């Protein structure tokens, strides 16, 4: 399907909004419950293990961050363990994530003082530290945020928030990034709403300012071994095995059990679409040893919901959310777009 011109996308959204009914509110509640099980619950459970496999920033994201002028204030919505908070130490990052466990990890990476308190949090922090010590030297180098020299990184901050109900004031910040997050929302209306929230928080478009970077997993992954490509199912449950020494198999399922599970005859690893290491490079990453003691019975498998974006779909969603496209591209199994606020007249009525 060809990309919709912005006017027809806006019309489609206006029609959707006009048709909002109690039935749709039910669907919204269902979508929230679904994401609670297949996204939020999973990240809470796998947080330390997940974090230990997340060190290297995506090149397109690092490039975007380094292009921001010193003293800029930016958001990282869905910041996870905070690996992007210190990429450009000259800017101030405000990170948010839906998972309190990941935010606690991100905060410990920022080197904030421990105030001895709730045991659970202290435990998570020590797990993060042991994961960092067992990491390879390159990973270890990337695992701590540089907070010296009184730069922006020293005052970056994190908080717990839902991307659909962000607590930032309108036009509060210079830029925003949202990496590997929006593909976890289970309806198109919610994915577009998440983009709308990002656009709301950044300043109006100005030379190089007010930009939003969105990065999502692509359907077109012909070069990877996951077996997904153009024309395939876009809504999947992707397994995360808590002890990845075990060779995980890709399981492909349609949502809500509409179809039976189909095994894809390729190996999949826990790297998912979120880290620029290859499938093989991720095997035996430091998270394994750290969680080995936990998995006493069989290795627990958590299934995360993903919407794989087809070519052009991310741009359509940005337009529907009232944004304009500045640049867009494809990088290692992911689609990305740099967007800004459109003119007020192009925004859908709401």
């Amino acid at each position: 399907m060809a990309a919709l011109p912005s006017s027809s996308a806006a019309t489609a959204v206006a029609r959707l909004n006009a048709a909002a009914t109690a039935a749709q509110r039910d669907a919204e509640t269902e979508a929230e419950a679904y994401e609670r099980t297949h996204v939020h619950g999973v990240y809470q459970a796998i947080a330390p293990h997940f974090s230990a496999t997340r060190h290297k920033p995506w090149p397109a994201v690092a490039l975007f961050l380094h292009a921001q002028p010193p003293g800029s204030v930016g958001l990282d919505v869905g910041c996870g363990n905070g690996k992007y908070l210190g990429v450009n130490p000259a800017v101030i990052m405000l990170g948010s994530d839906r998972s309190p466990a990941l935010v606690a990890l991100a905060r410990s990476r920022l080197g904030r003082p421990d105030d001895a308190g709730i045991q659970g949090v202290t435990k998570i922090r020590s797990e993060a530290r042991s994961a960092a010590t067992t990491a390879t030297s390159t990973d270890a180098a990337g695992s701590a945020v540089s907070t010296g020299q009184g730069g922006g990184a020293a005052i970056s901050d994190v908080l717990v928030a839902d991307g659909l109900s962000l607590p930032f004031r309108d036009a509060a910040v210079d830029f925003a990034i949202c990496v590997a997050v929006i593909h976890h929302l289970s309806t198109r209306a919610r994915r577009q709403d998440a983009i709308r929230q990002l656009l709301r928080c950044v300043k109006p478009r100005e030379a190089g300012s007010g930009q939003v970077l969105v990065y999502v997993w692509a359907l077109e992954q012909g070069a990877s071994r996951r077996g997904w490509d153009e024309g395939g199912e876009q809504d999947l449950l992707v397994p995360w095995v808590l002890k990845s020494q075990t060779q995980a198999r890709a399981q492909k399922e349609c949502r809500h059990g509409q179809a039976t599970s189909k095994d894809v005859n390729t190996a999949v690893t826990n790297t998912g679409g979120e880290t620029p290491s290859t499938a093989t490079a991720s095997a035996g990453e430091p998270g394994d040893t750290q969680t080995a003691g936990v998995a006493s019975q069989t290795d627990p498998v958590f299934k995360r919901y993903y919407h794989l974006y087809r070519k052009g779909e991310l741009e359509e969603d940005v337009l529907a959310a009232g944004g304009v496209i500045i640049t867009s591209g494809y990088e290692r199994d992911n689609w990305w777009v740099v967007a800004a606020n459109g003119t007020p007249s192009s925004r859908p009525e709401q």
Partner: protein
Amino acid sequence: MKVLTLNFLTCAVKSCKSSSDSFPLHPKDAELAKDDVEINPQLLANVLPRLDWNALRTTSTELGFPSLPDQPPSPEDLTADEKMLQELHSLLMETQIMEGKLVCGHCGHEYAIREGIANFLLPSHLV
């Protein structure tokens, strides 16, 4: 959570965002801590124009800090006034709320801060 961060935050409830009462959020029962952050005059000068100064004055008073001037200092003011530079640096960059609540002046919802982390997840009836 840094005092600087508070200046960018409002209530997470959608219907509160259009109300001027929802910003800034009001600290309640706040326990403060102080980070040791190297002073960076250039960064401070870059950040000041990005702040809502009136909101910062409110926050400063509510947290028991000395009252701030009516207008934000210019970069020249900061260079000339070492004490002002030091005070703003300490308030914005070094002061953290470790425990307590943030209260919305519009809907009254209280967001908890624990271990220095504010939680803005809403109960389902407020989403």
